[in-house]
């Protein structure tokens, strides 16, 4: 039968076998961190925390792009919307709180803010409205950055004049490096992000393994993928090994997607970036190369904002570092709920707090 790439990787009988295998070989208490919002959601959806042995702890890291976007960047985007421009953005960004307001509120106040599915839609607005500047809010990891770079290259090819991108992109391996270096976190292994790795391949994790002796397994998103990824990590840990391996072989090759990397490197170069919770991380963001500077929003607009204020009491930053789990935040499920979110980890559909709330993980323990 022809593969459909979904159902085959959700078979409950195989899941039972994988869980049984994990229970059989796992003795050491371990803390495994995932750094991808889709892993966060699916671990909750499949209730994996309740199914694994209690000494296997799964913690969420900085895997949600809008969550790790610094409050100052959000403030700048909100400020940008006050100009006479069309703002185009992915929907996730709309409700994320800045210091005082959010993009939803700006739209209610009359700003022209449009939610798009792809950065190419934003370029479409620029082609249709040559008089008005279009600003696309570029948020995302290595999965998203090449799509935006491809759009910018197309804009240059079509000589589009008033199309600009706010680059708040973030790179995952430098953040993992920062986390593994912090002494109070004790991460025993990384469940590495599947779709980021489709692009970047295995090499960045090999460097991480070499420097920090931490097992890394690039893992897919279906039930069996995640269980197999965890099994591969535990095998390494029980044997005292640290290697970079690929579980998600149908989509991730050692070298990654060379074409996407080329497109990304044509437009951007790695530069220092500020992350919510993690602070400034060297070479963890993407800035425009000189040949594409004309599309950088900062080369046309001087966006000035006051010092950012984070929501009082919100511990989203500590959640993103894996320092606490969401129920340990005093606001969680009390003042802060999906219907009335206070911090970005509860706002975004793939934020750790939203995932814990939705799947009631903290009640299972």
């Amino acid at each position, binding site marked *: 039968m022809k593969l459909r790439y979904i159902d085959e990787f959700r*078979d409950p009988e195989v899941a039972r076998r994988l869980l049984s295998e994990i229970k*059989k070989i796992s003795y050491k208490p371990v803390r495994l961190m995932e750094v991808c919002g889709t892993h966060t959601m699916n671990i909750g959806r499949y209730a994996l925390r309740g199914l694994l042995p209690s000494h296997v702890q799964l913690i969420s890291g900085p895997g949600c792009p809008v969550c790790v976007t610094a409050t100052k960047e959000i403030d700048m985007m909100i400020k940008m919307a006050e100009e006479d421009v069309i703002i185009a953005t992915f929907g996730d960004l709309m409700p994320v709180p800045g210091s005082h307001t959010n993009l939803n509120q700006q739209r209610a106040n009359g700003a022209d803010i449009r939610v798009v*599915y792809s950065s190419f839609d934003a370029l479409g607005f620029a082609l249709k409205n040559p008089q008005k500047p279009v600003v696309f809010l570029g948020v995302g990891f290595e999965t998203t950055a090449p*799509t935006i770079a*491809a759009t910018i290259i197309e804009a240059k090819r079509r000589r589009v004049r008033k199309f600009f991108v706010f680059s708040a992109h973030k790179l995952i391996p430098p953040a993992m490096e920062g986390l593994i270096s912090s002494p109070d976190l004790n991460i025993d292994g990384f469940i590495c992000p599947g779709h980021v790795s*489709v692009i970047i391949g295995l090499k960045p994790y090999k460097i991480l393994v070499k420097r920090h002796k931490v097992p890394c397994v690039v893992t897919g998103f279906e039930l069996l993928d995640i269980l197999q990824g965890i099994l591969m990590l535990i095998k390494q840990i029980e044997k005292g090994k640290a290697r970079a391996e690929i579980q998600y072989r149908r989509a991730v090759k050692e070298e990654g997607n060379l074409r996407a990397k080329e497109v990304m490197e044509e437009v951007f170069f790695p530069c220092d970036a500020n992350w919510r919770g993690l602070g400034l991380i060297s070479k963890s963001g993407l800035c425009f190369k000189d040949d594409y500077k004309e599309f950088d929003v900062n080369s046309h607009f001087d966006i000035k904002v006051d010092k950012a204020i984070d929501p009082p009491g919100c511990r989203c930053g500590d959640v993103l570092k894996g320092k606490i789990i969401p129920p340990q935040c005093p606001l969680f499920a009390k003042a802060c709920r999906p219907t009335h979110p206070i911090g970005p980890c509860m706002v975004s559909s793939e934020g750790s707090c939203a995932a814990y709330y939705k799947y009631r993980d903290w009640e299972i323990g």
Partner: protein
Amino acid sequence: MPLYPKSVKLEDTMCLGIPMKVVKVNLAKNVAKVDIGGTQQWIRLDIVNEVPKIGDYVIVHAGFALYRLDEKEAQETLSLFEEMLRDETPLH
């Protein structure tokens, strides 16, 4: 000229990548039409590792094909799972 023809747009969360089946390829425009459960949309082929053929599955993210899925590798993973099912030792 539109960048790609209008069609149903799927709900998207940021890093979500969904395997979708290619039903049409238009190389002149650098686009392909993909199908998931009857919902179809046009996607860009600017960054995909290799141009997919009709019937191939690609991972789609934010309107772009990211990767043409490797059927051989997928089958290998699945046959490993099948082997586990044949294992008759009792479950722990």
